[in-house]
């Protein structure tokens, strides 16, 4: 019988997962466009609900932006593992002989490309529409970009834990939002400093540190969480 050993390495297998998820997203764009539309609509609600005084809007812009970003991310995380968990794909990942955490990290990375990255691109535009000066856009972009990496990675742990539940969405928010508070604090602070025209370097460094920390620890925790949910 031909050798049943693995012919390809973990990286090639991870590339295969990324290619598959991108193709699926292309076939069904609703999944990743929804959180983006949610984010845009929520940020647009603030000028309507408050008054359209630019000074007021500029004061609340960082908070409004980041709360909307957090909620949109959690909304997006609900479909990170759900379909693959229900149709048996994650079981096949676990049995592939490839490192499970690497395959799941490939899924999370694709998920970030499809949700985190578009949010980071739209974020500065939303800030400007809330009265932030155009010069603040690089700072806002940096904060949302770094922040969304942590949000996706930490979120993958919560998505793994709630995978086995039929109605995991609400529990996912309750579980995740407290975990995401540090990212919210530093992200909103960086955005605020950028809007005020000050240097946002300090909170951006902290956001970067959070992103690196989640990159090292979250994939292993997520893999364990998914394994427990598969039981």
């Amino acid at each position: 019988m031909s050798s049943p050993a693995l012919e390809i390495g973990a990286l090639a297998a991870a590339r295969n997962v990324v290619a598959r998820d991108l193709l699926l997203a292309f076939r069904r764009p609703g999944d990743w466009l929804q959180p983006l539309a949610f984010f845009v609509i929520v940020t647009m609600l603030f000028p309507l609900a408050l008054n359209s005084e630019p000074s007021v809007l500029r004061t609340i812009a960082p908070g409004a932006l980041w709360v909307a970003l957090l909620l949109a991310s959690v909304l997006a995380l609900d479909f990170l593992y759900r379909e693959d968990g229900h149709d048996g794909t994650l079981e096949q990942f676990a049995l592939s002989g490839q490192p499970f955490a690497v395959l799941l990290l490939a899924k999370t990375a694709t998920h970030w490309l499809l949700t985190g990255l578009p949010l980071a691109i739209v974020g500065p535009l939303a800030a400007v529409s809330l009265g932030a000066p155009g010069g603040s856009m690089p700072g806002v972009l940096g904060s949302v970009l770094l922040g969304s990496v942590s949000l996706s990675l930490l979120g993958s742990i919560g998505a793994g834990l709630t995978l086995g539940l039929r109605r995991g969405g609400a529990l996912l928010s309750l579980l995740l939002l407290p975990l995401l508070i540090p990212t919210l604090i530093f992200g909103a602070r960086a955005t605020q400093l950028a809007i005020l025209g000050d240097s946002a370097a300090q909170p951006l460094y902290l956001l970067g540190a959070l992103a690196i920390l989640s990159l090292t620890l979250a994939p292993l925790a997520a893999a364990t969480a998914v394994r427990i949910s598969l039981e």
Partner: protein
Amino acid sequence: MLEVKQLHLWRGDRHLLKGVGFALHSGQALQLLWPNGTGKTSLLRCIAGFLYAEEGQVLWDGSPVARTRDAFNCQLAYLGHEPALKGDLTAIENLRYSLGLRHKVNEAQMQAALQTAGLAHLDPQQPVRSFSAGQRKRVALARLSLWRARLWLLDEPAANLDAAGQAVLGATLVQHFANGGSALIATHQPLELPGIDARRWLSPEAAS
């Protein structure tokens, strides 16, 4: 060779598997014909590593699989209740991405496997979403034959298959045994596998 020794498994407060043991050599099949709810699926999932047995051992070629899980998984193909196919992808795309986790994929081989499974007449652009349950099972059988795994764990492989589909299943299995593979099959209807050492195990209390 797969050996299971004195396996005890609890699900919640139910003692499901009470000291199950058997050996499965290459070229052999073992058909689990246990009644509903007596732990067929749990036994398969336990060997696949999704469930942890409280007691007992699973040995592959003489060494415990708990210690060599990744190496054991490479030799394993598991076909569960869910066929692990994506509705938005075509049959060949499904094969490409599933097999691509382990092997360099070969388009001609995949086409041939789909043809053997009796799916050649379908539009190649058709997404699996529009397949019937039996056609999906046939795609899963095509994938099974391409995985080059030595041990197959099959959970109700004949479910949803028509007579022609069952013949495909039989032929796929016979080819697998001819290559020296083995299979543990949970099923309600005994499979007809002419010329194959395919023991039938009727209940967990009876000896294998």
